[in-house]
């Protein structure tokens, strides 16, 4: 199973390249057809803009700002979400009484909170981190609660008959048992962190890639805007890939034991 994942099948690689080529061709055809506004850049212009962007200091500075805000917010959310989630999920009474709050919180459109947070903190990186953290908190929290709640009856009996002390139970049974769910929450929220960070920058003009996209748009530098978009996507994809690999390694037992 893991071996298959590691060796890339040449046929599959070819198919994937083909899919990318088809997308680029469609894009070029649409641009030539004149359906889109005449300023829409073609594949070559975007590629050139990507090339010039990657060598510009402004790009790296804004990428750094975005990453810093996304990463900080995400880490805060992961720490708070797993801690709180394990507590809530392992204490049935707390779980029952807090479920209405958590259901409300997770359905709340966090981006709508942004104006309020701006009012309180101003249009800066600190505000951005807070909004990212608030957005990332819910997937981590909800997944962690699911994971901690879902304890096999047979495992519960085993732990009871062998009189495993509470702390040991938490560390070696509850936590690893909840880990696959926590990992999913962490992965989902990582993608969300980049998404929200860029979104906040677009809307609030806090420094970062999002702001550069807005600036490029306002200056009518469409090719540059697309180049930035491309990098925003690339970063999100890279992070997802990284976490997937880490998860497959660290939680090998889960894939093997549960298919």
């Amino acid at each position: 199973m893991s071996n298959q994942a590691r060796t890339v099948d040449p046929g599959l690689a070819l198919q994937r390249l083909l899919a990318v080529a088809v997308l680029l061709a469609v894009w070029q055809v649409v641009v030539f057809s004149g359906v889109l506004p005449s300023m829409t850049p073609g594949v070559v212009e975007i590629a050139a803009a990507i090339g010039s962007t990657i060598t510009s200091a402004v790009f790296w500075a804004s990428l750094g700002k975005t990453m810093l805000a996304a990463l900080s917010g995400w880490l805060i959310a992961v720490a708070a979400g797993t801690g709180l989630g394990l507590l809530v999920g392992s204490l049935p009474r707390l779980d029952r009484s807090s479920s209405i709050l958590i259901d409300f919180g997770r359905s709340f459109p966090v981006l709508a909170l942004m104006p309020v947070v701006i009012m309180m903190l101003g249009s800066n990186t600190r505000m951005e981190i807070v909004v990212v953290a608030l957005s990332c908190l819910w997937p981590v929290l909800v997944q962690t609660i699911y994971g901690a709640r879902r304890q096999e009856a047979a495992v519960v009996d085993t732990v009871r008959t062998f009189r495993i002390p509470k702390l040991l139970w938490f560390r070696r049974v509850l936590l690893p048992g909840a880990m696959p769910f926590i990992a999913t929450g962490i992965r989902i929220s990582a993608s969300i962190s980049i998404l929200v960070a860029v979104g906040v920058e677009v809307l609030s003009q806090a420094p970062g890639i999002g702001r550069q996209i807005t600036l490029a748009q306002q200056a009518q530098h469409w090719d540059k805007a697309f180049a930035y978009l491309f990098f925003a996507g690339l970063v999100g994809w890279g992070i997802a890939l990284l976490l997937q690999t880490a998860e497959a390694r660290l939680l090998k037992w889960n894939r093997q034991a549960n298919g």
Partner: protein
Amino acid sequence: MSLQTAHSPARRATEQLMQVRGLTMSYGSGAAENKILQDLDLDVRAGEFVSIVGPSGVGKTTLLRCLSGLLAPKAGTISVGGQQITGPHPDLAVVFQDYSRSLLPWMSTRENVAFPLQGKGMGKAERNALADRNLAAVGLAGQGDKYPWEMSGGMQQRVAIARALAYNAKVLLMDEPFASVDAQTRFDLEDLVIDLHTNLGVTVILVTHDIDEALYLADKVVVIAEKPATVVDVIETNFGEVRDQVETKADPRFAEARARILHRLRDH
């Protein structure tokens, strides 16, 4: 091999170890009360192998859960070594039917066996050594680094047995332990448990719906039936210490005992 338990040779022991008096258990209350066990008595001598046999749904698992301290009975007393059981007890170790779920998939088999010892506060080197010894005792020498999901069902159940043995309890409680393995594996596991009982002198209480299994394994078969369930017969097997899947089951006394149990179960 220096594996625990003081009593050996096992069979023909006389010292009273476990005593159940008037065990009554029900779920719900009032008009909705569902009585499962009624006034059940049971005596187990040290080193004895007792099978509890009864039809499916009679309340065998409920009985075993009461004996292991996982369920508090409505009435009656259970004691082991003169001590009243009010909850899970260090003298009792349980092997569950659902072995694949009772082993923790994120731990190696060694860690699974050593885990209850860690709970007792035993140091790492000592508990790992004890785990390896007990894995060897169930025929899994050198398999400590494997994970449960790398093993067959029969091997997983051996790990669960090793875990219970390593816990060094006086009584091993087994709930339909071989119900979900194939026939050949089942015979192998039955013979393993007989060997462990004979060599280590551990007291075993095994619950099963299989009359042949109950007779083949035990020194004493306790038949439970009726609703609510109670003891309807107790049979001392007297087939001797050495058992053989073919010869013991062909013994005329085996056939006689089986007929007697079948009659008892049919009458109720």
